[in-house]
C-alpha cells in the first residue's frame, strides 16, 4: 500500500517535470534584441551606465506579445570598425529582431549602414549627429539632434546669460563637436549675437592655455565649448589660470561625474544642454524611473545615457506590440509612427526618424549638477 503510494507520487512528479520541459520547448521564440554599446575603451563610461538603464527596463518589462525579451550585448570597444562588426555579428549570428545602439555618434555612424543594408530596425539612444538617420529607412534615434542642442545653447546664451559676444572652442576630431558648434554659431548670430573667436583643439589634448589666452583678449561674454568632459574639465581649469572668467557653456557630452571630480572649483558655473536630469523630470514615468534606478543601483546617479537607454527599450517594445509581431517591416513602420511617447526624458514624437522632445539645461553648483531649465522644442 505504502509502496504504491510512493510510486504513484513519484509518477506524478515525473509526469509534471516532463510536461514542464515540453511546454518550455514548445514556447514561442524569445524576442531578440541586439545591443552594441562601448563596454571597454574611452567611451566605456557611457556604455556601462547605459546598459544598466537597459537592464532595468528589461527587468520591469520582461515580455512583449507574451514572448520573452532577450538582450544580446556586444561590446563595440568604443571603436568605429568594431561597431560595424558588432552589428553584423548580432544580425547574422544572433539573428536579432532589432538592434539598440550605438551610443556615440561616430560609432553609430559606422554601425548604421550595416543595419540599413540587412533591413533590421536599429534605434540609437544617444547619437545626436544629424547624419546618423539621414536617408535611412531602418535607423532611428530616441534623442534630439545637434541642431536643436545648438539652438537651445544659443538661446540660453542670449536670453539667460545676456551674452553679446561669444567665443567658440571646438574639438575638431569629433563629428559631434563640429556639428553642434556650427549650429550654435548660426543661431547665435541669427539672434543678434556675435562670434568673436573660433578656435580648435583635438581629443586628447591637455594644454589649452594658448587658445584660452587668445580668447581672453577678445573679452567674450560666454565661451561655447561643446566638448567631451575630459578636455572640458581641463579647459575650465586652465581658463581660470589664464584669467578668463567668462562662463563656459557646453553640450550633453559634459555630463559625467568626472567633470566635477577633475575640474573641482573651476567648473562651478559651467552650464550645458542635455537630455535628462533627475531634478528636471516632467513625466510620471520619469519619476518612476528615477526611483527604480536609485533602488537598483544605489551608488549610481541616473544620467542621460541610462534614461535614454531605458526609453529606447520601451519605444522599441511599444512598436513591436503595436505591430503585433516581430516582422521587421511592420516594426519599422510602427517605429515611424511613434507619437506622444511618455518617456522618462520627456514626451516625444518621432519625426523623420529623429525625436522631437525637450532639452534640459544643467549647471554645476557646489560640486553637483543642478537643474536650471527645461526648454520645449
Amino acid at each position: 500500500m505504502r509502496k504504491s503510494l510512493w510510486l504513484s507520487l513519484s509518477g506524478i512528479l515525473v509526469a509534471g517535470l516532463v510536461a514542464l520541459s515540453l511546454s518550455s520547448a514548445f514556447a514561442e521564440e524569445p524576442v531578440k534584441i541586439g545591443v552594441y554599446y562601448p563596454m571597454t575603451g574611452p567611451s566605456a563610461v557611457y556604455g556601462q551606465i547605459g546598459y544598466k538603464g537597459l537592464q532595468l527596463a528589461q527587468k520591469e518589462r520582461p515580455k512583449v506579445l507574451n514572448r520573452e525579451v532577450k538582450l544580446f550585448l556586444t561590446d563595440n570597444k568604443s571603436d568605429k570598425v568594431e561597431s560595424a562588426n558588432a552589428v553584423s555579428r548580432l544580425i547574422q549570428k544572433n539573428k536579432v529582431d532589432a538592434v539598440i545602439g550605438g551610443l556615440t555618434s561616430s560609432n553609430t555612424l559606422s554601425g548604421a549602414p550595416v543595419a540599413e543594408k540587412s533591413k533590421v530596425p536599429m534605434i540609437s539612444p544617444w547619437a545626436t549627429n544629424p547624419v546618423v538617420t539621414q536617408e535611412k529607412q531602418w535607423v532611428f534615434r530616441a534623442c534630439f539632434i545637434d541642431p536643436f542642442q545648438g539652438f537651445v545653447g544659443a538661446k540660453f546664451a542670449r536670453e539667460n546669460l545676456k551674452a553679446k559676444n561669444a567665443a567658440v572652442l571646438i574639438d575638431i576630431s569629433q563629428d559631434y563637436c563640429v556639428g553642434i558648434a556650427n549650429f550654435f554659431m548660426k543661431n547665435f548670430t541669427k539672434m543678434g549675437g556675435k562670434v568673436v573667436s573660433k578656435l580648435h583643439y583635438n581629443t586628447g589634448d591637455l594644454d589649452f592655455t594658448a587658445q584660452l589666452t587668445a580668447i581672453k583678449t577678445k573679452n567674450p561674454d560666454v565661451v561655447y565649448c561643446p566638448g567631451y568632459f575630459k578636455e572640458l574639465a581641463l579647459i575650465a581649469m586652465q581658463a581660470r589660470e589664464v584669467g578668463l572668467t567668462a562662463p563656459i557653456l557646453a553640450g550633453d557630452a559634459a555630463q559625467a561625474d568626472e567633470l566635477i571630480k577633475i575640474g573641482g572649483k573651476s567648473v562651478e558655473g559651467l552650464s550645458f544642454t542635455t537630455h535628462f536630469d533627475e531634478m528636471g523630470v516632467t513625466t510620471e514615468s520619469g519619476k518612476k524611473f528615477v526611483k527604480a534606478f536609485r533602488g537598483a543601483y544605489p551608488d549610481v546617479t541616473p544620467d542621460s545615457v541610462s534614461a535614454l537607454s531605458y526609453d529606447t527599450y520601451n519605444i522599441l517594445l511599444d512598436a513591436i506590440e503595436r505591430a503585433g509581431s516581430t516582422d521587421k517591416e511592420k516594426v519599422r513602420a510602427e517605429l515611424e509612427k511613434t507619437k506622444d511617447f511618455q518617456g522618462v526624458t520627456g514626451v516625444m514624437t518621432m519625426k523623420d526618424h529623429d525625436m522631437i522632445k525637450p532639452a534640459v539645461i544643467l549647471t554645476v553648483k557646489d560640486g553637483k549638477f543642478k537643474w536650471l531649465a527645461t526648454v520645449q522644442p
Partner: protein
Amino acid sequence: MTFQLFLQQLINGLGLGSLYGLIAIGYTMVYGILRLINFAHGDVMMMSTYFAFFGVSIFALPWWVAALLAMILTGLLGISIDQGAYRPLRRASRISALITAIGVSFFLENAALVVFGSRPRAFYRPEMFRAIWHFGDISLLSLTGYTILITLCLLVIVYFIVYKTRMGMAMRAVSKDMHTVPLMGIDLNRVVAFTFGLGSVIAAVGGILWAMKYPQIEPLMGIIPGLKAFVAAVLGGIGNVFGAVLGGFILGITEILLVAFWPELSGYRDAFAFLLLILVLIFRPTGIMGEDLPE
C-alpha cells in the same frame, strides 16, 4: 598681438616646455648610454602618476611623501624593466632592443588598462601649487613656476652626477664603448641599472608634475608626452641632457606660439610638433647640441 600677450604666451610655452624637457632627460640619458630609444619611458611616467595617486587616495599620505614613494617605486620599476626585458638583449642587435622597448610599452599600457581601468581619475593638486601669480596683466600658475625651477635644478643635478662622480665616469665610459668597459673592471649591469633607475626617477618627477598640471590620469596618458619628449630629445641632440631640456623648451614655446600667431591652425598643433621632428631629422639629424660627444 601686444607685447604683454606675447609674454603671457611665452610663459605658457615655457611651462609646457619644461615638462617636455623633464621627461626628455630620461629618454636622452638611456639613449646616450645604451643607444636604445626606450619607448616605454612615457608609460613608466604614467605608472609613476598612479603610484602617487594611490599613495594619496588610498593610503592617505601627505602629497610629498606619496611623491617621494612614487619616485622610488618608479626607479625600481625602471630597473626591473631593464633587468627583465633589456638585459638579455644587451648583445643583440639594436633593432631587437627597440622592438622589445615597444613591447614593454604596450605591456605597461594594457596592464594598466586591466588593473586601473580606463576611466580617468582626478589627480590631487597640492595647495601650494594652486596659487596664481600675477605680474601686471600676466598670470602664471605657481605650479608652472615651480616646474621650471625643478627642471633647471634637476638638470644641474644630472650634470653633477654625470661629470663629477665615479658612477658618472663609468656611465660616460659605457657610452663610448659598452663592450670594453667590463674588461676594465666596471660592473656594466650596475651602471646600466643605475642609469635606468635615475632616468625613471626623473620620469616620475616629470609625471607627477604633469599630472598636477593636467590633473587627470589614465593608462594611455604616457603616449603623447612620451612622443613629444622624444621629439624634444631629438631636437636638442639625442644623448645630450642640456639639449633635451633646450629641445623641450623650444618645442613647448613653438607649439604655443603657433596657436598664438595663427589661431586658425590650432587644430594642427601635434602635427606641427612631428613636422618639426621630420625637418630636424632631414636637415640636422644630430640635433641642436648634437655635435658634442654624447654623455
